[in-house]
């Protein structure tokens, strides 16, 4: 495979981790102490929620696939912390972090994983299919790349309705090779849609390293040039940098109704899903290196300690509370009831669930 001559990676990634050079960026400088603490708290909550999930999965209470977000928290946290009333988002199956960031409760999220009727999708969607449209969160999609056209459509609708808004479309580094993604890129640029494609580049698609999956001109984001779109690369271990650079793309969406591709370099600590033994395709040393030197939650904690926004005591309290919240959610998920057999055939058609004067069809629609 032809290798690009120059890799276009974020400058800050090339330097050893230290104080964020984006702390003074206007969007970060504008944060109050309380807002910074809230942002840190949200990141800690994602971390503890996911770690609690591992135990529940190991107890056999969660089945199927469970894709964890541990290590990638700053991506969802940084980007989503900037969103306003008319900004929407949509992602793939690694969707818990985004859910918690938009304000979904740990209870409904955990109960969905154990298939309970109290889950966010009433036990019908599962880990890969979280939804909270009331919070502008349109899922949670299991088919790689399938969300890209949908998110482009959400942006189209925002523009159509004359709102100053956008849609953030998250996907992985493997997803960029789905045809649907390329068709969405073209539409977004051709029609000037306020969409931001966020490529969460964690280095691997399942057991395939990014180098083995994708031909590109230096980085994945740069493919945007072929569609005449703006792009940027971001160090995803620094939540301040994520915010600073995403803010520029958001401004472009809001003010010029133009799309952007952002590639955010990040890392996942666990296997692709809990079913992946994670023993063959990457080095244990590599994982250790990221965990110890680039951890986004720890880095932000350090940042806030330096800024004297956090104290060690407050940080401890935040983490303990997040753990306790996750423990409670686990109990809630355990004690909640299952959907019933009758529930299986509900929510298939609006029509079936809303029989009345507004229904426009007749005949059998659910078959024996």
């Amino acid at each position, binding site marked *: 495979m032809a290798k690009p001559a120059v890799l276009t990676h974020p400058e800050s990634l090339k330097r050893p981790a230290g104080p964020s050079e984006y702390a003074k960026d206007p969007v970060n400088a504008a944060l109050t102490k309380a807002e910074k603490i809230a942002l840190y708290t949200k990141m800690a909550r994602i971390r503890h929620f996911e770690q609690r999930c591992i135990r529940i999965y190991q107890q056999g209470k969660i*089945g199927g696939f469970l894709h964890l977000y541990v290590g990638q928290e700053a991506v969802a946290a940084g980007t989503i912390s900037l969103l306003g009333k008319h900004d929407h988002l949509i992602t793939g199956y690694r969707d818990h972090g985004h859910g918690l960031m938009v304000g979904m409760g740990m209870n409904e999220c955990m109960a969905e994983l154990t*298939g309970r009727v109290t889950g966010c999708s009433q036990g019908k969607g599962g880990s890969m299919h979280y939804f909270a449209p009331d919070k502008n969160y349109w899922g949670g999609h299991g088919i790689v790349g*399938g969300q890209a056209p949908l998110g482009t459509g959400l942006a189209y609708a925002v523009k159509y309705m004359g709102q100053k808004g956008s849609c953030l479309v998250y996907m992985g580094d493997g997803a960029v090779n789905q*045809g649907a993604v390329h068709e969405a890129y073209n539409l977004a640029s051709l029609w000037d849609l306020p969409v931001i494609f966020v490529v969460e580049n964690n280095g691997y698609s399942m057991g*395939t390293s990014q180098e083995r999956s994708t031909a590109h001109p230096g980085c994945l984001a740069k493919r945007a040039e072929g569609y005449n779109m703006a792009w940027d690369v971001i160090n995803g271990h620094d939540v301040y940098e994520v915010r600073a650079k995403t803010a520029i793309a958001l401004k472009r969406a809001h003010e010029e109704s133009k799309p952007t591709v952002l590639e955010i370099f990040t890392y996942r600590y666990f296997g692709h899903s809990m079913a992946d033994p994670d023993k*063959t395709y990457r080095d244990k040393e590599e994982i250790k290196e990221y965990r110890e030197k680039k951890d986004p939650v720890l880095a932000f904690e350090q940042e806030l300690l330096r800024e004297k926004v956090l104290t060690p005591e407050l940080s401890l309290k935040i983490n303990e509370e997040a753990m306790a919240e996750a423990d409670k959610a686990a109990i809630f998920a355990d004690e909640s009831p299952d959907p019933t*057999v009758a529930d299986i055939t509900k929510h298939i058609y609006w029509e079936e669930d809303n029989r009345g004067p507004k229904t426009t069809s007749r005949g059998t629609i659910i078959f024996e």
Partner: protein
Amino acid sequence: MAVISYREALRAAMREELKRDDKVVIMGEEVAQFNGAYKVTEGLLKEFGPKRIVDTPISEAGFIGLGIGASMLGIRPVMELMFWSFSYVAFDQIVNNAGNIRYMSGGLINCPIVIRGPGNGGTNVGATHSHTPEAILASHPGIKVVCPATPYDAKGLLKAAIRDNDPVYVMENTILYNDKGEVPDEDYIVPLGVADVKRVGTDLTIVAHGRAVITSLKAAEILEQEHGVSVEVVDLRSIRPLDEETILASVRKTHRALLVEENKPFCGVDAQVAYLIQSKAFDELDAPIHRVSSIDAPQIYCKRMEDQQLPDVNRVVREALKVLA
């Protein structure tokens, strides 16, 4: 005879065909270095090298279309789909290109491609990952579809599929991958279009395919033990071509038919089988034909409910007793 798993049987089929014909190429996501998402292709990269065993990006429309094109020039690609659910992003290639090219060229071009992978529910992965598209695909003339239920059939059908000169889509089942069974050591194929009577009986014919065969065999045992009924189980093995004669011969013997499949009922495989029986053996029937299929809804995530949604042994027994009443 060796006792091997369904997974090993599939692997053995590919190994033997890779050895027999140097035009055979295995392609798919994670099939080579990762040894297969479900380890079906484990060890093949080591044995045959990267020219024959090829990892692809997550570009189903691209790599499957590429396989179809390569097959037109004589390569014999065996493409793995991690799930048949993912075939939907490659539907144009799978249906429009592979299914029509021979016809539209007036027979000038062949398309000897095999696409294989699991197409089943029951694994708690929700609606986007649980499709059983055998009926949808078999409804397109130009396409062949098989659904093995045992290690013996998995190996024999896959080998036949690889040697076949038309597009053959092999639908496996992740729940069956660890099932074990006897498989001959010597070379054999199971020809496409030949059903198999998996259990001989006299009072009722159950027609099934895929994992529904296993469920039906268990139900037949209970019907025998607890109700004194002798049930014949016909495993279709192949959906298109369809072995009409074996189905009809069984119905002519038992005079009663129950059709079991894991598809949703509307336009399922068994809708076609029911039509076949009533059109060619109507006078033989002593009772209306009954069907057991999945509850008609997208696949529910909740495992306890998904187990209810799929045909289970109890439901098959209950429905069988209705046909026998």
